[in-house]
Protein backbone atom coordinates (compact mmCIF):
# COMPACT_ATOMS: atom_id res chain seq x y z
CA UNK A 1 0.00 0.00 0.00
CA UNK A 2 1.76 3.17 -1.18
CA UNK A 3 0.96 6.70 -0.13
CA UNK A 4 2.44 10.20 -0.32
CA UNK A 5 2.18 12.61 2.60
CA UNK A 6 2.90 16.31 2.20
CA UNK A 7 2.89 19.07 4.80
CA UNK A 8 4.06 22.60 5.42
CA UNK A 9 4.54 23.88 8.97
CA UNK A 10 6.32 26.51 11.05
CA UNK A 11 9.44 24.46 11.81
CA UNK A 12 10.97 20.97 11.89
CA UNK A 13 9.21 20.06 15.14
CA UNK A 14 5.81 20.94 13.70
CA UNK A 15 6.56 18.95 10.54
CA UNK A 16 7.45 15.93 12.65
CA UNK A 17 4.26 16.22 14.72
CA UNK A 18 2.14 16.61 11.57
CA UNK A 19 3.75 13.54 9.97
CA UNK A 20 3.49 11.30 13.03
CA UNK A 21 -0.11 12.43 13.59
CA UNK A 22 -0.89 11.21 10.09
CA UNK A 23 0.57 7.80 10.99
CA UNK A 24 -1.57 7.72 14.16
CA UNK A 25 -4.64 8.27 12.01
CA UNK A 26 -3.61 5.54 9.57
CA UNK A 27 -3.19 3.03 12.40
CA UNK A 28 -6.48 3.85 14.10
CA UNK A 29 -8.75 4.37 11.14
CA UNK A 30 -7.27 2.40 8.30
CA UNK A 31 -5.49 -0.31 10.33
CA UNK A 32 -2.34 0.37 8.31
CA UNK A 33 1.23 0.47 9.54
CA UNK A 34 3.76 2.21 7.31
CA UNK A 35 7.19 0.58 7.29
CA UNK A 36 9.17 2.10 4.42
CA UNK A 37 9.74 5.82 4.05
CA UNK A 38 11.41 8.06 1.52
CA UNK A 39 11.60 11.49 3.17
CA UNK A 40 12.28 14.84 1.45
CA UNK A 41 12.55 17.99 3.57
CA UNK A 42 12.94 21.42 1.98
CA UNK A 43 12.91 24.19 4.56
CA UNK A 44 9.45 23.99 6.17
CA UNK A 45 8.04 21.61 3.58
CA UNK A 46 7.91 17.86 3.99
CA UNK A 47 7.15 15.14 1.46
CA UNK A 48 7.16 11.49 2.43
CA UNK A 49 6.57 8.58 0.08
CA UNK A 50 5.72 5.57 2.17
CA UNK A 51 4.52 2.02 1.89
CA UNK A 52 2.60 0.08 4.47
CA UNK A 53 0.85 -3.16 5.37
CA UNK A 54 -2.39 -4.04 7.16
CA UNK A 55 -2.23 -4.41 10.94
CA UNK A 56 -3.28 -7.81 12.24
CA UNK A 57 -3.70 -6.90 15.90
CA UNK A 58 -3.15 -3.85 18.08
CA UNK A 59 -2.30 -3.98 21.79
CA UNK A 60 -1.58 -0.33 22.51
CA UNK A 61 -2.75 2.70 20.54
CA UNK A 62 -1.13 6.08 20.36
CA UNK A 63 -3.97 8.58 20.73
CA UNK A 64 -2.03 11.76 19.96
CA UNK A 65 1.44 13.10 19.23
CA UNK A 66 2.38 15.95 21.58
CA UNK A 67 4.92 18.78 21.68
CA UNK A 68 5.69 17.90 25.31
CA UNK A 69 9.50 17.91 25.78
CA UNK A 70 9.86 17.70 21.99
CA UNK A 71 13.49 18.05 20.98
CA UNK A 72 15.27 17.38 17.71
CA UNK A 73 19.04 17.25 18.25
CA UNK A 74 21.62 16.84 15.51
CA UNK A 75 24.29 14.34 16.50
CA UNK A 76 27.27 12.78 14.75
CA UNK A 77 25.16 9.75 13.86
CA UNK A 78 22.12 11.67 12.67
CA UNK A 79 19.17 13.30 14.42
CA UNK A 80 18.12 12.28 17.92
CA UNK A 81 14.52 12.99 18.80
CA UNK A 82 12.76 13.06 22.14
CA UNK A 83 8.99 13.00 21.72
CA UNK A 84 6.03 12.15 23.93
CA UNK A 85 2.94 10.30 22.72
CA UNK A 86 -0.38 10.29 24.54
CA UNK A 87 -1.30 6.62 24.96
Amino acid sequence: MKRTFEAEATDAESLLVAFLSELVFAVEQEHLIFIEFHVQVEGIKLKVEMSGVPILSLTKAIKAVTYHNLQIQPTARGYEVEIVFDV
Partner: protein
Amino acid sequence: MIRLQDMKRITPYEWEIPQSFRADMRVPVRIFATQKLLEQIMDDKSLEQAVNAATLPGLVGTVVIMPDMHQGYGFPIGGVAATKFPQGVVSPGAIGYDINCGVRLLSSDIECEAALPHLDALATLLNKYCPSGVGVEGVVRVNIPELERVLREGSCWALKNGYATEADLVRTEEGGCLEGANPAKVSDRAKQRGRQQIGSVGAGNHFVEVDVVEAVLDPETAAVFGLRQGCLAVQIHCGSRGFGHQVCTDYVQEFQAAVRRYGIELPDRELVCAPMDSPEGQAYLGAMRAAANFAFANRQILAHSARRAFEEVFEGKLKGWELRQVYDIAHNMGKIETHEVEGKRLKVCVHRKGATRAFGPGSPDLPPEYQSTGQPVLVPGSMGTASWVLAGTEMSMARSFGSCCHGAGRVMSRSKAKREIRGDELRRELERDGIRVRAGSMPGLAEEAPQAYKDVDEVVETVTAANIARKVARLRPLAVVKG
Protein backbone atom coordinates in the same frame (compact mmCIF):
# COMPACT_ATOMS: atom_id res chain seq x y z
CA MET B 1 12.68 23.54 40.28
CA ILE B 2 10.05 24.88 42.69
CA ARG B 3 10.54 24.10 46.37
CA LEU B 4 8.25 24.39 49.38
CA GLN B 5 10.10 27.50 50.54
CA ASP B 6 9.19 29.26 47.27
CA MET B 7 5.53 29.01 48.28
CA LYS B 8 3.51 30.94 50.83
CA ARG B 9 1.45 28.73 53.12
CA ILE B 10 -1.96 30.38 53.49
CA THR B 11 -3.63 27.56 55.44
CA PRO B 12 -2.66 23.88 55.89
CA TYR B 13 -4.70 23.27 52.71
CA GLU B 14 -3.87 26.28 50.61
CA TRP B 15 -0.55 27.51 49.21
CA GLU B 16 0.48 30.26 46.86
CA ILE B 17 3.31 30.69 44.40
CA PRO B 18 3.51 34.50 44.20
CA GLN B 19 3.56 36.27 40.85
CA SER B 20 6.99 37.60 41.77
CA PHE B 21 8.40 34.06 41.63
CA ARG B 22 9.11 34.39 37.91
CA ALA B 23 9.18 37.48 35.70
CA ASP B 24 6.84 36.13 33.01
CA MET B 25 4.01 35.21 35.40
CA ARG B 26 0.91 37.34 34.91
CA VAL B 27 -0.95 36.04 37.99
CA PRO B 28 -0.07 34.02 41.11
CA VAL B 29 -0.72 30.29 41.41
CA ARG B 30 -3.00 29.08 44.19
CA ILE B 31 -2.69 25.42 45.16
CA PHE B 32 -5.19 23.46 47.21
CA ALA B 33 -3.12 20.68 48.80
CA THR B 34 -1.74 19.34 52.05
CA GLN B 35 2.01 19.51 52.54
CA LYS B 36 2.13 15.72 52.08
CA LEU B 37 0.36 15.90 48.69
CA LEU B 38 2.67 18.74 47.64
CA GLU B 39 5.77 16.77 48.59
CA GLN B 40 4.46 13.82 46.56
CA ILE B 41 4.41 15.83 43.35
CA MET B 42 7.72 17.63 43.78
CA ASP B 43 9.31 14.99 41.56
CA ASP B 44 7.18 15.68 38.53
CA LYS B 45 6.75 18.85 36.54
CA SER B 46 3.26 19.86 37.71
CA LEU B 47 4.33 22.93 39.74
CA GLU B 48 6.61 24.16 36.96
CA GLN B 49 3.71 23.66 34.54
CA ALA B 50 1.45 25.64 36.88
CA VAL B 51 3.94 28.53 36.79
CA ASN B 52 4.11 28.22 32.98
CA ALA B 53 0.31 28.30 32.83
CA ALA B 54 0.42 31.62 34.72
CA THR B 55 2.03 33.24 31.64
CA LEU B 56 -1.07 32.94 29.41
CA PRO B 57 -2.25 36.34 28.15
CA GLY B 58 -5.50 37.66 29.62
CA LEU B 59 -5.42 35.64 32.86
CA VAL B 60 -7.41 36.99 35.77
CA GLY B 61 -7.43 36.06 39.44
CA THR B 62 -5.04 33.18 39.98
CA VAL B 63 -4.25 29.90 38.30
CA VAL B 64 -5.86 27.33 40.61
CA ILE B 65 -4.39 23.88 41.17
CA MET B 66 -6.29 21.03 42.79
CA PRO B 67 -4.91 18.44 45.25
CA ASP B 68 -5.03 15.64 42.66
CA MET B 69 -2.61 17.60 40.46
CA HIS B 70 -0.01 15.90 38.32
CA GLN B 71 2.10 16.54 35.27
CA GLY B 72 0.26 16.94 31.96
CA TYR B 73 1.16 18.13 28.46
CA GLY B 74 1.95 21.81 28.96
CA PHE B 75 -0.78 22.58 31.44
CA PRO B 76 -0.91 20.53 34.65
CA ILE B 77 -3.73 18.07 35.23
CA GLY B 78 -5.83 19.39 38.09
CA GLY B 79 -5.50 22.96 36.82
CA VAL B 80 -7.95 25.82 36.35
CA ALA B 81 -7.18 29.07 34.50
CA ALA B 82 -9.59 31.90 33.63
CA THR B 83 -8.91 34.38 30.85
CA LYS B 84 -10.85 37.58 30.30
CA PHE B 85 -13.49 37.47 27.58
CA PRO B 86 -13.21 38.35 24.70
CA GLN B 87 -9.60 39.38 24.14
CA GLY B 88 -7.96 36.93 26.55
CA VAL B 89 -6.69 33.70 25.04
CA VAL B 90 -8.15 30.25 24.72
CA SER B 91 -5.61 27.42 24.95
CA PRO B 92 -6.38 23.85 23.80
CA GLY B 93 -3.64 22.48 26.07
CA ALA B 94 -5.37 23.99 29.10
CA ILE B 95 -8.47 21.91 28.28
CA GLY B 96 -6.79 18.68 27.27
CA TYR B 97 -6.69 16.15 24.46
CA ASP B 98 -9.66 14.21 25.77
CA ILE B 99 -12.13 17.08 25.52
CA ASN B 100 -15.06 16.61 27.92
CA CYS B 101 -13.58 13.60 29.57
CA GLY B 102 -16.02 13.33 32.43
CA VAL B 103 -18.08 11.19 34.73
CA ARG B 104 -21.73 10.25 34.84
CA LEU B 105 -23.36 8.83 37.96
CA LEU B 106 -26.59 6.85 37.92
CA SER B 107 -28.32 5.58 41.06
CA SER B 108 -30.93 2.96 41.91
CA ASP B 109 -33.05 1.46 44.68
CA ILE B 110 -31.44 -1.97 44.23
CA GLU B 111 -30.21 -3.14 47.61
CA CYS B 112 -26.70 -4.56 47.53
CA GLU B 113 -27.60 -7.75 49.44
CA ALA B 114 -30.36 -8.60 46.98
CA ALA B 115 -28.11 -7.82 44.01
CA LEU B 116 -25.07 -9.88 45.09
CA PRO B 117 -26.07 -13.17 43.41
CA HIS B 118 -26.53 -11.32 40.12
CA LEU B 119 -23.38 -9.19 40.07
CA ASP B 120 -21.25 -11.58 38.03
CA ALA B 121 -23.88 -11.71 35.31
CA LEU B 122 -24.27 -7.92 35.49
CA ALA B 123 -20.53 -7.35 35.10
CA THR B 124 -20.45 -9.66 32.09
CA LEU B 125 -23.38 -7.93 30.41
CA LEU B 126 -22.01 -4.44 31.08
CA ASN B 127 -18.77 -5.58 29.50
CA LYS B 128 -20.75 -6.74 26.47
CA TYR B 129 -22.97 -3.68 26.05
CA CYS B 130 -20.41 -1.00 26.94
CA PRO B 131 -17.54 -1.77 24.56
CA SER B 132 -14.12 -0.88 25.92
CA GLY B 133 -10.53 -1.40 24.90
CA VAL B 134 -7.97 -0.32 22.34
CA GLY B 135 -9.42 0.16 18.88
CA VAL B 136 -12.87 -1.01 19.93
CA GLU B 137 -15.74 0.70 18.13
CA GLY B 138 -18.93 2.05 19.62
CA VAL B 139 -22.46 0.67 19.63
CA VAL B 140 -23.62 3.52 17.41
CA ARG B 141 -22.00 4.11 14.04
CA VAL B 142 -23.08 7.07 11.95
CA ASN B 143 -22.33 8.66 8.61
CA ILE B 144 -20.76 12.10 8.49
CA PRO B 145 -23.99 14.16 8.17
CA GLU B 146 -25.46 12.31 11.18
CA LEU B 147 -22.22 12.76 13.13
CA GLU B 148 -22.49 16.50 12.50
CA ARG B 149 -25.92 16.41 14.12
CA VAL B 150 -24.39 14.68 17.15
CA LEU B 151 -21.72 17.39 17.26
CA ARG B 152 -24.29 20.18 17.22
CA GLU B 153 -26.81 18.56 19.57
CA GLY B 154 -24.92 16.33 22.02
CA SER B 155 -27.31 14.64 24.48
CA CYS B 156 -30.27 16.18 22.61
CA TRP B 157 -29.37 13.95 19.65
CA ALA B 158 -29.42 11.00 22.02
CA LEU B 159 -32.87 12.02 23.30
CA LYS B 160 -34.26 12.34 19.75
CA ASN B 161 -32.91 8.89 18.90
CA GLY B 162 -34.27 7.06 21.92
CA TYR B 163 -31.13 6.83 24.06
CA ALA B 164 -32.11 9.30 26.78
CA THR B 165 -34.91 10.65 28.96
CA GLU B 166 -35.65 14.34 29.53
CA ALA B 167 -34.58 13.90 33.14
CA ASP B 168 -31.15 12.69 31.96
CA LEU B 169 -30.57 15.96 30.11
CA VAL B 170 -31.75 18.13 32.98
CA ARG B 171 -29.23 16.40 35.22
CA THR B 172 -26.30 16.82 32.85
CA GLU B 173 -23.92 19.77 32.89
CA GLU B 174 -25.11 22.25 30.23
CA GLY B 175 -28.09 19.99 29.53
CA GLY B 176 -25.63 17.81 27.62
CA CYS B 177 -25.22 20.30 24.79
CA LEU B 178 -22.88 23.28 24.52
CA GLU B 179 -24.18 26.04 22.29
CA GLY B 180 -21.89 27.28 19.59
CA ALA B 181 -20.57 23.92 18.41
CA ASN B 182 -19.29 24.30 14.85
CA PRO B 183 -18.75 21.05 12.93
CA ALA B 184 -17.34 23.07 10.01
CA LYS B 185 -14.30 23.86 12.16
CA VAL B 186 -13.64 20.17 12.82
CA SER B 187 -11.24 18.39 10.47
CA ASP B 188 -12.24 15.45 8.29
CA ARG B 189 -9.67 13.41 10.17
CA ALA B 190 -11.47 14.04 13.46
CA LYS B 191 -14.85 13.18 11.94
CA GLN B 192 -13.46 9.92 10.55
CA ARG B 193 -12.12 9.01 13.98
CA GLY B 194 -15.38 9.89 15.69
CA ARG B 195 -18.07 8.40 13.51
CA GLN B 196 -17.56 4.81 14.63
CA GLN B 197 -16.77 5.46 18.28
CA ILE B 198 -20.02 6.74 19.73
CA GLY B 199 -21.06 4.54 22.63
CA SER B 200 -17.62 3.22 23.48
CA VAL B 201 -15.62 3.56 26.69
CA GLY B 202 -12.07 3.56 25.34
CA ALA B 203 -9.08 2.25 27.26
CA GLY B 204 -6.61 3.61 29.81
CA ASN B 205 -8.27 4.86 32.98
CA HIS B 206 -11.76 4.88 31.48
CA PHE B 207 -14.30 2.51 32.92
CA VAL B 208 -17.85 1.55 33.75
CA GLU B 209 -18.21 0.66 37.41
CA VAL B 210 -20.99 -0.71 39.61
CA ASP B 211 -20.77 0.67 43.15
CA VAL B 212 -22.70 0.46 46.38
CA VAL B 213 -23.48 3.67 48.26
CA GLU B 214 -21.44 2.70 51.31
CA ALA B 215 -21.85 5.80 53.45
CA VAL B 216 -24.11 8.83 53.35
CA LEU B 217 -22.61 11.84 55.10
CA ASP B 218 -25.32 14.35 54.23
CA PRO B 219 -28.66 12.53 54.19
CA GLU B 220 -30.68 15.54 53.04
CA THR B 221 -28.49 16.26 50.02
CA ALA B 222 -28.11 12.55 49.24
CA ALA B 223 -31.89 12.27 49.10
CA VAL B 224 -32.08 15.20 46.68
CA PHE B 225 -29.37 13.60 44.51
CA GLY B 226 -31.25 10.28 44.60
CA LEU B 227 -28.57 8.31 46.47
CA ARG B 228 -29.70 5.63 48.94
CA GLN B 229 -27.36 3.99 51.41
CA GLY B 230 -26.72 0.32 50.65
CA CYS B 231 -28.08 0.61 47.11
CA LEU B 232 -26.33 0.20 43.78
CA ALA B 233 -24.99 3.03 41.64
CA VAL B 234 -23.15 3.13 38.30
CA GLN B 235 -20.27 5.38 37.27
CA ILE B 236 -19.29 5.91 33.64
CA HIS B 237 -15.93 7.56 33.04
CA CYS B 238 -14.97 8.41 29.47
CA GLY B 239 -14.70 11.29 27.02
CA SER B 240 -14.61 12.20 23.36
CA ARG B 241 -12.36 9.33 22.25
CA GLY B 242 -10.27 9.72 19.11
CA PHE B 243 -12.48 12.58 17.97
CA GLY B 244 -11.49 14.89 20.82
CA HIS B 245 -7.85 13.86 20.58
CA GLN B 246 -7.80 14.80 16.90
CA VAL B 247 -9.48 18.19 17.53
CA CYS B 248 -6.87 19.03 20.16
CA THR B 249 -4.04 17.76 17.93
CA ASP B 250 -5.32 19.85 15.01
CA TYR B 251 -5.54 23.06 17.01
CA VAL B 252 -2.30 22.66 18.98
CA GLN B 253 -0.74 22.32 15.53
CA GLU B 254 -2.59 25.30 14.05
CA PHE B 255 -1.87 27.53 17.03
CA GLN B 256 1.90 27.02 16.61
CA ALA B 257 1.56 29.60 13.81
CA ALA B 258 -1.15 31.63 15.61
CA VAL B 259 1.11 32.51 18.56
CA ARG B 260 3.65 33.97 16.14
CA ARG B 261 0.94 35.95 14.36
CA TYR B 262 -0.30 37.44 17.65
CA GLY B 263 3.13 37.98 19.13
CA ILE B 264 2.52 35.62 22.06
CA GLU B 265 5.59 34.14 23.74
CA LEU B 266 5.14 31.06 25.86
CA PRO B 267 7.50 28.82 27.86
CA ASP B 268 5.89 25.60 26.52
CA ARG B 269 4.65 24.74 23.03
CA GLU B 270 1.74 22.74 24.43
CA LEU B 271 0.36 25.99 25.92
CA VAL B 272 -0.17 27.57 22.48
CA CYS B 273 -3.24 29.77 22.32
CA ALA B 274 -5.05 32.50 20.40
CA PRO B 275 -7.26 35.41 21.50
CA MET B 276 -10.84 34.22 21.98
CA ASP B 277 -12.14 36.87 19.60
CA SER B 278 -9.69 36.00 16.81
CA PRO B 279 -10.78 33.77 13.89
CA GLU B 280 -8.43 31.07 15.20
CA GLY B 281 -9.80 31.32 18.73
CA GLN B 282 -13.40 31.20 17.50
CA ALA B 283 -12.60 28.20 15.29
CA TYR B 284 -11.14 26.27 18.21
CA LEU B 285 -14.06 27.14 20.50
CA GLY B 286 -16.48 25.87 17.82
CA ALA B 287 -14.53 22.64 17.39
CA MET B 288 -14.02 22.15 21.13
CA ARG B 289 -17.75 22.50 21.77
CA ALA B 290 -18.42 19.94 19.04
CA ALA B 291 -16.08 17.52 20.83
CA ALA B 292 -17.76 18.28 24.15
CA ASN B 293 -21.14 17.43 22.64
CA PHE B 294 -19.68 14.20 21.19
CA ALA B 295 -18.64 13.17 24.70
CA PHE B 296 -22.01 14.05 26.24
CA ALA B 297 -23.72 11.91 23.58
CA ASN B 298 -21.15 9.16 24.17
CA ARG B 299 -21.80 8.98 27.91
CA GLN B 300 -25.55 9.17 27.33
CA ILE B 301 -25.46 6.17 25.00
CA LEU B 302 -23.31 4.25 27.46
CA ALA B 303 -25.87 5.06 30.17
CA HIS B 304 -28.55 3.64 27.87
CA SER B 305 -26.41 0.51 27.41
CA ALA B 306 -25.95 0.18 31.16
CA ARG B 307 -29.72 0.41 31.61
CA ARG B 308 -30.10 -2.37 29.07
CA ALA B 309 -27.75 -4.58 31.11
CA PHE B 310 -29.60 -3.81 34.35
CA GLU B 311 -32.96 -4.55 32.75
CA GLU B 312 -31.78 -7.89 31.42
CA VAL B 313 -30.38 -8.95 34.78
CA PHE B 314 -32.96 -7.56 37.22
CA GLU B 315 -36.28 -7.26 35.36
CA GLY B 316 -38.71 -9.72 36.91
CA LYS B 317 -36.31 -10.48 39.77
CA LEU B 318 -36.12 -7.21 41.72
CA LYS B 319 -38.41 -4.20 41.97
CA GLY B 320 -37.13 -0.66 41.51
CA TRP B 321 -34.10 -1.69 39.45
CA GLU B 322 -34.31 1.33 37.16
CA LEU B 323 -31.22 3.54 36.91
CA ARG B 324 -31.83 7.24 37.37
CA GLN B 325 -29.41 10.04 36.55
CA VAL B 326 -27.67 11.79 39.44
CA TYR B 327 -25.43 14.04 37.31
CA ASP B 328 -22.95 14.13 34.44
CA ILE B 329 -19.90 16.35 34.80
CA ALA B 330 -17.00 17.32 32.56
CA HIS B 331 -13.44 17.53 33.86
CA ASN B 332 -11.65 18.65 30.69
CA MET B 333 -13.48 21.69 29.40
CA GLY B 334 -13.47 25.37 28.50
CA LYS B 335 -16.54 27.38 29.34
CA ILE B 336 -17.54 31.02 29.14
CA GLU B 337 -18.77 31.90 32.62
CA THR B 338 -19.21 34.97 34.81
CA HIS B 339 -17.23 35.13 38.04
CA GLU B 340 -16.41 37.74 40.63
CA VAL B 341 -12.75 38.72 40.47
CA GLU B 342 -11.45 41.37 42.88
CA GLY B 343 -14.93 42.71 43.47
CA LYS B 344 -15.92 42.90 39.78
CA ARG B 345 -18.23 40.56 37.82
CA LEU B 346 -16.17 39.41 34.85
CA LYS B 347 -17.00 37.26 31.84
CA VAL B 348 -14.18 34.77 31.47
CA CYS B 349 -13.21 31.59 29.69
CA VAL B 350 -12.64 29.07 32.47
CA HIS B 351 -10.24 26.34 31.34
CA ARG B 352 -10.53 23.21 33.50
CA LYS B 353 -8.16 20.32 32.83
CA GLY B 354 -8.59 17.45 35.27
CA ALA B 355 -10.83 19.74 37.32
CA THR B 356 -14.59 19.63 37.77
CA ARG B 357 -17.09 22.46 37.81
CA ALA B 358 -18.47 22.73 41.34
CA PHE B 359 -21.18 25.38 41.33
CA GLY B 360 -22.73 26.13 44.70
CA PRO B 361 -26.33 26.66 45.83
CA GLY B 362 -28.29 29.32 43.98
CA SER B 363 -26.38 29.00 40.69
CA PRO B 364 -28.78 29.66 37.80
CA ASP B 365 -26.97 27.07 35.64
CA LEU B 366 -28.09 24.22 37.89
CA PRO B 367 -31.33 22.23 37.54
CA PRO B 368 -34.12 23.47 39.86
CA GLU B 369 -33.80 20.44 42.16
CA TYR B 370 -30.10 21.22 42.81
CA GLN B 371 -30.54 24.92 43.50
CA SER B 372 -30.67 24.37 47.25
CA THR B 373 -27.83 21.85 47.46
CA GLY B 374 -25.29 22.97 44.87
CA GLN B 375 -24.30 20.63 42.05
CA PRO B 376 -23.05 17.08 42.52
CA VAL B 377 -19.28 16.87 42.14
CA LEU B 378 -18.24 13.37 41.12
CA VAL B 379 -14.78 12.22 42.24
CA PRO B 380 -13.95 8.68 41.12
CA GLY B 381 -11.15 7.06 43.08
CA SER B 382 -8.57 4.80 41.54
CA MET B 383 -9.63 1.30 40.57
CA GLY B 384 -10.76 -0.78 43.51
CA THR B 385 -10.87 2.17 45.89
CA ALA B 386 -13.70 4.40 47.03
CA SER B 387 -15.28 7.17 44.97
CA TRP B 388 -16.90 10.27 46.35
CA VAL B 389 -19.98 12.33 45.65
CA LEU B 390 -19.51 15.89 46.86
CA ALA B 391 -21.57 19.05 46.44
CA GLY B 392 -20.39 22.42 45.20
CA THR B 393 -20.31 25.33 47.65
CA GLU B 394 -20.59 29.11 47.52
CA MET B 395 -16.95 29.26 48.61
CA SER B 396 -15.84 27.44 45.45
CA MET B 397 -17.28 30.30 43.40
CA ALA B 398 -15.14 32.73 45.38
CA ARG B 399 -11.91 30.70 45.64
CA SER B 400 -11.58 28.47 42.59
CA PHE B 401 -13.79 29.80 39.76
CA GLY B 402 -16.42 27.33 40.91
CA SER B 403 -14.11 24.33 40.49
CA CYS B 404 -12.98 21.28 42.38
CA CYS B 405 -10.80 18.18 42.00
CA HIS B 406 -11.65 15.36 39.59
CA GLY B 407 -10.18 12.14 40.95
CA ALA B 408 -7.21 10.64 42.69
CA GLY B 409 -4.41 11.82 40.38
CA ARG B 410 -1.49 9.63 39.28
CA VAL B 411 1.69 9.32 41.33
CA MET B 412 3.34 6.54 39.31
CA SER B 413 3.88 6.49 35.57
CA ARG B 414 2.16 3.81 33.48
CA SER B 415 5.48 2.19 32.58
CA LYS B 416 6.57 1.99 36.22
CA ALA B 417 3.21 0.56 37.25
CA LYS B 418 3.46 -2.12 34.55
CA ARG B 419 6.99 -3.01 35.69
CA GLU B 420 6.10 -3.28 39.36
CA ILE B 421 2.60 -4.72 39.30
CA ARG B 422 1.28 -7.89 37.69
CA GLY B 423 -2.14 -7.41 36.12
CA ASP B 424 -3.34 -10.94 36.83
CA GLU B 425 -2.26 -10.74 40.49
CA LEU B 426 -4.03 -7.42 40.83
CA ARG B 427 -7.15 -8.93 39.34
CA ARG B 428 -7.05 -11.76 41.88
CA GLU B 429 -6.63 -9.26 44.74
CA LEU B 430 -9.58 -7.22 43.53
CA GLU B 431 -11.75 -10.31 43.19
CA ARG B 432 -10.74 -11.35 46.72
CA ASP B 433 -11.96 -7.93 47.88
CA GLY B 434 -15.31 -8.67 46.30
CA ILE B 435 -14.77 -6.63 43.13
CA ARG B 436 -15.65 -8.36 39.87
CA VAL B 437 -13.27 -7.36 37.09
CA ARG B 438 -13.84 -7.43 33.34
CA ALA B 439 -10.67 -6.05 31.82
CA GLY B 440 -9.52 -6.33 28.23
CA SER B 441 -5.82 -6.14 28.99
CA MET B 442 -3.71 -7.28 31.97
CA PRO B 443 -0.94 -4.72 31.39
CA GLY B 444 -3.72 -2.13 31.03
CA LEU B 445 -5.08 -3.27 34.39
CA ALA B 446 -1.64 -2.97 36.01
CA GLU B 447 -1.32 0.60 34.75
CA GLU B 448 -4.47 1.44 36.69
CA ALA B 449 -3.44 -0.20 39.98
CA PRO B 450 -4.45 1.79 43.07
CA GLN B 451 -0.77 2.21 44.07
CA ALA B 452 -0.28 4.28 40.91
CA TYR B 453 -2.66 6.90 42.25
CA LYS B 454 -2.92 9.27 45.18
CA ASP B 455 -5.21 8.56 48.09
CA VAL B 456 -8.60 9.90 46.99
CA ASP B 457 -9.71 10.26 50.62
CA GLU B 458 -6.85 12.70 51.22
CA VAL B 459 -7.71 14.63 48.04
CA VAL B 460 -11.33 14.90 49.20
CA GLU B 461 -10.29 15.91 52.76
CA THR B 462 -8.32 18.75 51.24
CA VAL B 463 -11.11 20.20 49.10
CA THR B 464 -13.63 19.89 51.91
CA ALA B 465 -11.25 21.46 54.47
CA ALA B 466 -10.74 24.30 52.00
CA ASN B 467 -14.54 24.51 51.74
CA ILE B 468 -14.68 24.36 47.95
CA ALA B 469 -16.87 21.24 48.20
CA ARG B 470 -18.65 19.26 50.89
CA LYS B 471 -19.08 15.52 51.37
CA VAL B 472 -22.38 13.89 50.45
CA ALA B 473 -21.72 10.16 49.98
CA ARG B 474 -18.97 7.59 49.58
CA LEU B 475 -19.21 4.75 47.03
CA ARG B 476 -17.49 1.36 47.15
CA PRO B 477 -16.85 -0.63 43.95
CA LEU B 478 -18.48 -3.99 43.28
CA ALA B 479 -17.65 -4.48 39.61
CA VAL B 480 -15.28 -2.78 37.14
CA VAL B 481 -15.43 -2.94 33.36
CA LYS B 482 -12.49 -1.52 31.47
CA GLY B 483 -10.47 -1.94 28.32
